[in-house]
């Protein structure tokens, strides 16, 4: 399963980004292979509709689960329709690496 984690930077020790549509980066984690890849969010600075465009990207990437701090109504609408699971984590300055460790241990 492909899982995406919103991130403020492009490294494993970057802090996870509380925003989804305007997250700086996305970490794409492939559960089966264990491979991670960081993508820059091209829509982070868009005037409007960042949530919509980012969700579109998730569908294109074939992601099945997205982990972030919150999801706006427009993002939620699209993610839900494509059966992408949303996970909201409380804010406690976790790094992307720590989140992936939790996912591995589950």
């Amino acid at each position, binding site marked *: 399963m492909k899982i995406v984690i919103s991130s403020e930077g492009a490294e494993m020790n970057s802090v996870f980004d509380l925003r989804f549509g305007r997250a700086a980066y996305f970490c794409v984690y492939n559960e089966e292979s264990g491979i991670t890849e960081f993508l820059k969010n091209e829509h982070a600075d868009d*005037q*409007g*509709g*960042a949530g*919509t*465009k980012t969700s*579109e990207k998730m569908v*294109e990437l074939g992601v099945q689960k997205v982990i972030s701090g919150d999801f706006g109504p*427009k993002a939620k609408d699209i993610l839900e329709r*494509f059966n992408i699971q949303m996970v909201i984590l409380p804010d406690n300055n976790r790094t992307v690496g720590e989140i992936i460790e939790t996912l591995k241990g589950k």
Partner: protein
Amino acid sequence: MLKKIAIASGKGGTGKTTVSVNLYYFIHKYWTDKVQLLDCDVEEPNDLIFFPEAREKSFNVVNQQVPKIDNSKCTYCRDCVEYCEFNAIVVIPTVKFAEVNASLCHSCGACLHACKHGAMLEYDHKIGEIKKFDLGIGLGLIQGELEIGSSMQTMLIKDVIKEYNPETEIVLMDAPPGTSCPVVTTSADADFILLVTEPTPFGLHDLQLTIELMREIHKPFAVIINKDGIGDGSMEKYLEAEDIEIIGRIAFSKEYAANYATGKILNNLDETQDSFYRNLVMNLKEKLN
């Protein structure tokens, strides 16, 4: 001769609505009964609260034209996505998904030009309502009410402004707060602008921004100082240095604030207010004729 007066302020809560509502009443009393009030603060229309006896006369829905994608014709080429500057179109070729998000659409029509396959159609999407009220005096109130979540304030304001009664001699436009687009839209159509401010540092700072804007759009304006007496003299100093006319001062009164709070400003008019607004009306009459 039709004249339009906009009542604006940079900062919220300076008394814009109070002045608008009172002016309506006193223009009716001392100038002409062919006066109409337009509440252009479509996000938070509040003028009606002060007319408990208002009766709704008519009501119409305002629509914007929003495109819709005909999936039987769409080739998922994403040309429309490229044209849309507002990120309102989602097209995912791999799963044959194409849709327009109406709440992001600005109705610019660019996607209709982008689509070479005739897959873009337009339909009506509600952005708000315009309601007209009989207030017992004058020609009444027209207010725009934006749907929550819509970003089409400007379009709705334009429609509200067009709705005034053709017999009207004076149109009063209560503008939204701030200095952004909706204020420009309201002021752009006015012959004269009254800026309502309060003599506090915040009030002055926001007034300066608004004046900058008025000068950029080349509109004549004058300032009303509300809650006069609560601040220091820096407001006067600034206005004098910039050679800006103070067309009126409303003294601060806690009692008045209490009347405002409960929506009873027109029931408790005393002699001072009557003469204040009479002077203001006469002043405006002279200016605009």
